[in-house]
C-alpha cells in the first residue's frame, strides 16, 4: 500500500474481538450502561461536526462575497471591507516549514539517541526533560522569545548570518526582532517534544531482530540505524513529522507574540509576517463589520480543515506502525 487509504483504515485491535465477547449474557442494566457510554462517546464525532458547521456558517458571507479568490488575494483592508488571506496562508506555511527544518533533525536525534545510543541510566532523565518541554505553556514560550530569543538573535545570530548569506533573498532587509525567523525558531522548539515522543515510540516498535541482523552482517552501529531501523519505521517517522507540522500550523500565542503580525508576503525570514492563527487572535474581538468577522471565520475554517487533514494523514501513518496506541498523548 503506497497510497493513503482513508477508508477502510487499518483497525487497531485489542487482544480480543470485543472485551466482553463470550463472557456471560447481557442484562438490561448492562445494556443501559453500554448505551450511556456510547452516548458520551458520540459526543466526539458530534464535536467535530459542530465545529465544522459553526465555522462554515460564520464564514458563509465571506465565502459568498469573495469566493475562492480569498485564498490568493493579498488585500486585507478592514476600512474598504475587502479581505484576502494570502499573506496569512503564506506566513503559516512558511513559519511551519522553517520550524520543521530546524526541529526534525533535533527531534529525530533525540528519538534515535534514546532508543539506540543512550546508556540506560540516561534514558529516563532525557525523556523526562523533553516531556517537560511539551508542558511549557505557549504564552511562556512567547514571553521567553520576546525577552531572550529576539535579543540573542539580534546580537549573535543575524549579523554573522547576514555576513555569510546576506546575498540570498531569504536574508534581505533590516532585522528588527519580530520576524518569520523568530516565529519559526520558537515553533521549532515547541514541536521538538511532539515529534521526538512519537518517533521514539515508533523506533521502540522496531523489532530488535532488525538491529541484530544488521549488526550480525557486520554493520556499524550507525549503519544498523540507517539501513535497518529507520527504514522499518519510516511511515511512522513521517507520521510523527506531519504531526509536528499540524501542531506548528495551529500554534497561536507564541507565534502571535514573535512573528510581527504584518499582512505582507516576503521571502526574507528577517521580515515580519502573519499567520492565520495570529490573525484570529489579534483581530477577532476587534472585528468591526460583520463581513470582517466573517472573513476571520473563513480564516478559521481554512486553518481547521488544513490541520484536520494534516492530523488525519499523520494518524494513519503512525497507526500503521504503532497499532492503536495513543502515541504522543503521553508526551503532554
Amino acid at each position, binding site marked *: 500500500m503506497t497510497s493513503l487509504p482513508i477508508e477502510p483504515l487499518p483497525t487497531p485491535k485489542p487482544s480480543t474481538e470485543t472485551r466482553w465477547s463470550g463472557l456471560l449474557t447481557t442484562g438490561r442494566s448492562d445494556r443501559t450502561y453500554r448505551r450511556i*457510554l456510547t452516548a458520551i462517546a458520540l459526543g466526539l464525532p458530534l464535536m467535530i461536526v459542530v465545529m465544522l458547521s459553526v465555522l462554515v456558517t*460564520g464564514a458563509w458571507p465571506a465565502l459568498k462575497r469573495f469566493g475562492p479568490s480569498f485564498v490568493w488575494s493579498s488585500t486585507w483592508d478592514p476600512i474598504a471591507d475587502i479581505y484576502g488571506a494570502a499573506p496569512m496562508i503564506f506566513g503559516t506555511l512558511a513559519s511551519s516549514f522553517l520550524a520543521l527544518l530546524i526541529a526534525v533533525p533535533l527531534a529525530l536525534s*533525540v528519538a*534515535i539517541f534514546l532508543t539506540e545510543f543512550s546508556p540506560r541510566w540516561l534514558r529516563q532523565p532525557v525523556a523526562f526533560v523533553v516531556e517537560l518541554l511539551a508542558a511549557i505553556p505557549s504564552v511562556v514560550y512567547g*514571553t*521567553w522569545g520576546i525577552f531572550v530569543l529576539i535579543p540573542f538573535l539580534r546580537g549573535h545570530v543575524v549579523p554573522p548570518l547576514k555576513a555569510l548569506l546576506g546575498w540570498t533573498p531569504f536574508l534581505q532587509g533590516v532585522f528588527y526582532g519580530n520576524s518569520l525567523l523568530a516565529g519559526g525558531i520558537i515553533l521549532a522548539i515547541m514541536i521538538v517534544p511532539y515529534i521526538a515522543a512519537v518517533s521514539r515510540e515508533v523506533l521502540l516498535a522496531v523489532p530488535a531482530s532488525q538491529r541484530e541482523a544488521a549488526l550480525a552482517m557486520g554493520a556499524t552501529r550507525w549503519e544498523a540505524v540507517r539501513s535497518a531501523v529507520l527504514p522499518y519505521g519510516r511511515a511512522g517517522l513521517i507520521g510523527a513529522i506531519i504531526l509536528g507540522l499540524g501542531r506548528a500550523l495551529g500554534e497561536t500565542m507564541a507565534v502571535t507574540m514573535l512573528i510581527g503580525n504584518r499582512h505582507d508576503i516576503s521571502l526574507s525570514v528577517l521580515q515580519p509576517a502573519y499567520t492565520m492563527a495570529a490573525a484570529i487572535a489579534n483581530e477577532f474581538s476587534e472585528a468591526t463589520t460583520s463581513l470582517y468577522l466573517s472573513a476571520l471565520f473563513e480564516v478559521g475554517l481554512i486553518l481547521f480543515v488544513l490541520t484536520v487533514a494534516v492530523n488525519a494523514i499523520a494518524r494513519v501513518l503512525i497507526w500503521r506502525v504503532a497499532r492503536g496506541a495513543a502515541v504522543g498523548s503521553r508526551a503532554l
Partner: protein
Amino acid sequence: MTGQSLRRHIMSRAMTALVVLFSFLAVLALILILGNLIIKGASSIDWAFFTRSPVAAGQTGGGVANAIVGSVLIVSLAALIGVPIGVGAGMYLAEYGSGRLGFLVRFIADVLNGTPSIVIGIVGWTFIVKPTGRFSALAGSVALAMLMIPMIARTTEEMVRLVPNSLREAALALGYARWRTSLKIVARTALGGIVTGCLVGIARIAGETAPLLFTALGNLNFTTNLSQPMQTLSLQIYVYATGPYDEWHRLAWASALVLMGLVLIISLVARWVTRQRYGSVR
C-alpha cells in the same frame, strides 16, 4: 583495518556524535527557558504579587491575585465539564471500542487533539458569547473543556486497557453484572492511571491562552462572577509581555514563573499518582 572499514567506523562515530549533539541542544533549550524563568521571575515575586490586583498602567507594584483566582475558577469549571465526558468516552473506547464506531471515535479524538485551540475559542464564542451578548468566564471554561475531552478520552482508554482481562473474568465468574464489573473492578483498578490522564489534561489547559482571548477576555479587576469577563494567568502574561512598560515585563516574568510552577506541580503529581499504581507494570 582496511581503509574502507576505517571510513565506515569514523562515519559511525561521527553520526553518533551528531545525534548526541542535537539531543543535547534540545535538552539545552529547556534548561535555558527554565533558567531564565527562575532568574527573572523569582526576583519579582513578593507577597503583594499574590495578594493584590493589578494597578493602573505605568505605576509600580500590584499583583495578579485576580488572575490566579480566575485561572483556578475557569480551569476547575472546565474540568468539571470535561472530565466526566472525557472519562466516559475513554471507558467506551476501552470496553466497547473494537467496532466501527469505536474506531471512528478514536480516530476523531486523535484528530481533535491536534486541532488549533484558537478555533475552539471561535466555537466557544459562537455558542456562549454571541447569544448572551457578553464575554464570560463560563464561555472560557466551555472552550477549555472541549479542548481537554479528546485528550482525556485517549489516556483513559489506554489506562483501562492495561487492566488484565483475568480480573474481569474473575468478577464475572463471581456473578457480578457487566456494568458493575466495568465500574467497580476495571475502572477502579485503572483509577490511578485515569486520574493521571485527567491531571495531565488539566495541566495542559491551565496554560492555554488562545481559546480564552475572546471568551473569558481578561479583566483587570478581581471577580469571581462566572458570567463576567475574568482574568487568567495566561491572559495576564500575554498582556504584560506584549505591553510597553518595564514594570509590566517584570510582572510578566513573575506570572510566567507562577504559571509554569502550577503546570509543573500538576504534571509531577500526575506522574507520582501513576507511579504508585503502575510502578511495576510500566
